[in-house]
């Protein structure tokens, strides 16, 4: 049998892979195992490949130790072939490259190199992570600081624009606030101020639209009620009623009641508020005493 004829590798890589895998797992026993070993002795290609893969495996993890019975089995097979028992006994029971091919301390060296590689990879990874953290953290902080600065600058511009003599710009500022909502208390107070003091009804109405969406913020309901008496403006009040009716919360009902009950509000407006309230409030069931 020539090397080429008997080479499983030459027949099929898959075949070789299966046998070699079985061998590595310690499951290549019996006649097939014996043939595999014989083949490795004859075929250098498969021997080298098997040795390389085994070396890699050993370097990564200690390989499974052959059982005593398995050792005896391999030894018996070797003896049956007429091999020198000493040589066979001294041989690693698992098929591998002959010792003469191995440099001394190969296994330890491989393990050392692998360990060094693993340590190197780990250290590199840690250093890279550390460097990335060092790189990213200041950048992220700086970016957030810049964002905050932009927000503050924009807020200052908006607040300044709310005091612009041109109504169009004040209106634009309130619309910006509406777009950028949620806003902080300073901006909220500025919008409330627009509602109460702006000479343009258009700006006041836009402020109302924004504030009706902020009824859950502390003080907004009270400020809307205060504005009802402070600026008796039918157009504004009617718009306020319509927007409050669309919201339909307890806060909006409170303001609606204030509009309905205020003596400074136009009678037509008060009627409109009462109508919206009656639509919003469910019919109150009669109490037993009233029924009787």
């Amino acid at each position: 049998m020539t090397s080429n004829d008997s080479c499983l590798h030459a027949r099929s890589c898959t075949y070789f892979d299966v046998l070699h895998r079985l061998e590595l797992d310690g499951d290549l026993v019996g006649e097939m195992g014996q043939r595999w070993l014989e083949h490795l002795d004859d075929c250098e290609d498969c021997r080298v490949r098997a040795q390389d893969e085994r070396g890699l495996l050993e370097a990564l993890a200690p390989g499974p130790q052959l059982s005593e019975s398995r050792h005896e089995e391999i030894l018996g097979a070797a003896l049956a072939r007429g091999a020198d028992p000493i040589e066979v006994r001294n041989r690693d029971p698992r098929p591998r490259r002959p010792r003469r091919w191995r440099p001394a301390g190969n296994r330890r060296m491989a393990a050392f190199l692998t360990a060094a590689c693993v340590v190197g990879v780990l250290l590199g990874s840690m250093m890279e992570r550390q460097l990335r953290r060092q790189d990213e953290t200041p950048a992220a902080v700086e970016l957030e600081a810049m964002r905050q600065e932009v927000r503050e600058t924009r807020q200052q511009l908006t607040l300044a624009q709310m005091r612009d003599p041109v109504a169009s710009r004040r209106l634009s500022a309130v619309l910006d606030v509406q777009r950028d909502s949620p806003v902080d208390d300073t901006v909220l107070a500025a919008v409330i101020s627009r509602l109460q003091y702006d000479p343009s009804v258009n700006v006041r109405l836009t402020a109302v639209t924004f504030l009706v969406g902020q009824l859950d913020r502390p003080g907004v309901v009270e400020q809307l009620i205060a504005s009802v008496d402070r600026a008796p403006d039918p157009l504004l009040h009617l718009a306020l009623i319509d927007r409050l009716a669309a919201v339909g919360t307890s806060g909006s009902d409170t303001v609606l009641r204030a509009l309905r009950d205020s003596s400074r509000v136009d009678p037509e407006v008060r009627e409109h508020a009462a109508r919206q309230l009656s639509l919003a409030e469910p019919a109150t069931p009669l109490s037993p005493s009233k029924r009787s």
Partner: protein
Amino acid sequence: MRIPALLSQLFGVLPLAFLGPAGPADPVASVRVAPSYPDQAVRLVAVFPGNIVRVVGHEQPAIEVRWRSPATDRGGAVPRLSEDRNDVLLEVGAEGKGRDIEIAVPYHTSLSLKNQSAGSITVTGLTGNQEIESRFGDILLEEMSGSAVLAAYHGSLKATFLELDDDGANSFITYRGDIALHLPADLGATLSLTLDSVSIDSDFILEGVMKRGPSTHRIGDGKARIDVTLNGGHLTLRARAEGRTPPD
């Protein structure tokens, strides 16, 4: 140069035709003020007790106010003009209520006008930021450039723009009345509508769902801001072709 402006320069006064036909019993009086910086824009602030007001742009730097005194007028009620660094204040006392007032201003003038009682306000040919409020009367803007913030409690709004500013916001509110806007055909705007009923006639394609209550629509690039609040009236949006006066 426009003919009224030429006549005005020639004779130092506005042409009488500016006020339209005036009877011999209704003499015309006027006051005039010059801005501190003639080459800069002017801002005119006025509160009217209830007048029909007409404002027209002219090429002169001066601001001139003219009014027709009824034959029954015993005098005494004279509108006052004062100026401080191009801010012009026009004071019309309660005794001036009911008079027709005409104001000639430089083309680059921003108005801040309020009519506290009955009377319409008409403005023609100005560039600037216009803020006009009328209690009982229509507001009409013609051939304007810039931005406008208009409100009428009982009255309709009609505005024709040659150009709309992108940086400011425009707002049109009426409680009882219609709104008609003639806007540049190539307009890019974000249109915010608050409508009691959906009654719209638009030359523009309005992106977004049209509905009762608040809604937002985009026209073109959406740059300019236009807010419209109507309570039961009709909204007309006309695309104004350049150089053509829009039909009524």
